[in-house]
């Protein structure tokens, strides 16, 4: 049974912070199909379109019928742990620090056998659920879990190495004035975060939900204005070394396309809050996050972006807004590559219209702030890189995979 995680003590200031090391991480282009699946928390393997063989490791030709049509498909993830090994020594600098490390061979019911990292509660011969995970170097690996959940399962060290669980971590919610920011403060507090810093800009302006926000357990309000470089830098100067998960809840939602907007005042505010806000956070908090990727139980773990799904394809009714979200998505992709050097993940959560004032005239389905918050926490607990929340986001994602042009045209009519 997994030993429950103990809340880490305050760090010994005389101790050197360990440099984040990364596991080996080169894969073939074909094998990146596994990374794509792991990023979204799906279990997908290549399935031959001609003979239906399930194939692992990824290949360019079917070993049974030589077909080159080998798309990645969702596959049953159940199997049996055939054999396990405990690695006690390694010349690999990443694993040397993490010994002992258990790996084993899993026979999938769907066919192939896969070498996987093993959860501590799984024993040889037992039934298992296999998951694809993104490791610290950004590569997909397989992790074998017990067939049924076990107590304190998420506290397993090999599992926690692959996830960004808020438990015992210190979280910064960058904007507590929004309904989503408040819902996330509540959700990460419930998920066991040891401190929830919540940024509030313009403290002279009252805002709805303020009293409730202040009463959430372990919430500490901090001065943070994402549109102000000085404010972001000062906040980072005070708190960055104590932020393990940063969740950017900045939002700026306005209707209208590019022509409809008169002048640039609104567009500038939108970019200041969203694109430049993200840039300010990345510059002020990024270097410290990246340096603390291996800093014990409460190592720096994730930078979370909340993005409209219309970052992926423009919705002209909210056209200028969509363009700004697209800029944020592109920046987030760069940030992901930059933070990976420190073993810190970037989680992008995509969602459609929210159940908030700025989407008042949009008909349902809409995503409730609390639902978005729960989905983000879950994706952190699973160590995902991307999560699509709600019917609209799922739909946009699915249709982009099939026919992006048709979707563009439809959104524009």
């Amino acid at each position, binding site marked *: 049974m997994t030993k429950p995680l103990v809340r880490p003590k305050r760090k010994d200031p005389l101790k050197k912070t360990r440099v984040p090391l990364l596991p080996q991480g080169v894969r073939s282009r074909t094998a990146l199909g596994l990374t794509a699946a792991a990023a979204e928390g799906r279990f997908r393997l290549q399935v031959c379109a001609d003979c239906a063989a399930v194939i692992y490791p990824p290949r360019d030709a079917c070993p049974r019928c030589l077909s080159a049509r080998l798309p990645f498909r969702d596959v049953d993830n159940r199997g049996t742990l055939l054999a396990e090994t405990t690695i006690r020594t390694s010349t690999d600098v990443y694993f040397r620090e993490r010994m002992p490390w258990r790996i084993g061979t899993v026979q999938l019911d769907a066919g192939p056998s896969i070498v996987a990292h093993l959860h501590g509660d799984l024993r040889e011969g037992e039934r298992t659920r296999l998951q694809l995970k993104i490791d610290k170097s950004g590569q997909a690996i397989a992790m074998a879990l017990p067939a049924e959940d076990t107590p304190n399962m998420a506290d397993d060290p090999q599992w926690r190495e692959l996830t960004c669980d808020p438990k015992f971590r210190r979280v910064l919610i960058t904007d507590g004035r929004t309904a989503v920011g408040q819902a996330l403060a509540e959700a990460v507090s419930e998920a066991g975060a040891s401190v929830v810093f919540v940024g509030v800009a*313009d*403290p*002279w*302006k*009252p805002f709805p939900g303020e009293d409730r926000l202040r009463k959430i357990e372990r919430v500490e309000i901090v001065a943070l*204005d994402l*549109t*102000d*470089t*000085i*404010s972001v830098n000062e906040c980072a100067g005070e708190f960055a070394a104590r932020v393990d998960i940063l969740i950017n809840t900045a939002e700026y939602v*306005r209707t209208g396309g590019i022509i409809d907007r008169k002048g640039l*005042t*609104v567009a*500038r*505010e939108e970019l200041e809050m969203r694109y430049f806000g993200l840039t300010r956070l990345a510059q002020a908090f990024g270097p410290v996050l990246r340096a603390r990727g291996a800093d014990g139980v409460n190592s720096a773990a994730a930078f979370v972006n909340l993005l409209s799904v219309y970052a992926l394809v423009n919705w002209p009714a909210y056209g200028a807004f969509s363009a700004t979200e697209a800029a944020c998505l592109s920046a987030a992709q760069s940030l992901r590559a930059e933070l990976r050097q420190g073993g810190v993940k970037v989680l992008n959560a995509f969602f459609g219209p929210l159940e908030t004032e700025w989407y008042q005239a949009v008909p349902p389905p809409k995503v409730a702030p609390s639902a978005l918050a729960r989905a983000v926490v879950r994706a952190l607990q699973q160590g995902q890189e991307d999560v699509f929340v709600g019917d609209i986001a799922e739909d946009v994602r699915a249709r982009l995979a099939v026919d992006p042009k048709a979707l563009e045209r439809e959104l524009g009519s």
Partner: protein
Amino acid sequence: MSAPDLLAFASAVAAGDIEVIDLTHTLTPEFPTIVMPPELGQCAPFRMEEVSRYDERGLGWYWNNISMGEHTGTHFDAPVHWISGKDLANNSVDTIPAANFIAPAVVVDISKQSAANADYELTVADVTAWEKQHGRIPPRSWVLLRTDWAKKSGRDYVNMREDGQHTPGPSPEVVRFLVEERDLHGLGTETIGTDAGQAFHFNPPYPAHYYMHGKGRYGLQCLTNLDLLPPTGSVIVAAPLKIRRGSGSPLRVLALVRRA
């Protein structure tokens, strides 16, 4: 009358016989700006981006790029700011005659009334009572409204409630009186805006803006240190930036006061 002796004036300033009192708040990102409903255009707050600071971006020098609205921080309102002044001659900061940037001031103290009632409105009776004590307001004078609001900060300074801002200001009647009967140069306040916080509900809305700018007169707002000025006898130096067709500008407001 002999020609004024400017050198004597400069010596008096240097010697401190004429005190220079700074009526300006420091420009900072945190200083509140006026708040409009979120679907309307907003005045940009002050922002500062470092260009270099003796570093790889410029080894030997420190400088910043700054941005803000015309009505951010301690600032000047030109007549063109309001629709009532839009067609006047010389109504923007770049065309106002430079001599108008220096004018005498009187200080009307309603700090006690404002402390008791955040929505206190200056009345004609207040002004005539003041005149009984200090004499008639000279033509082309700034009227500076002392409320001690500048001593407040944050939430207390802006005083936003669910029905809007609550800060003192002039009644519609007193603005008309000052403009028409006293040939006022302009009105200066400590609050955000020359009008009261609730002036949207006055008739006309925002009477200080409406009547003053309609007559080509000026506004100064977010002033501080008005409590250091005598009721009469000070001179204000308030020159906005020369922005083409500008409706206003942040500026340094100085009061010259003969030392008692």
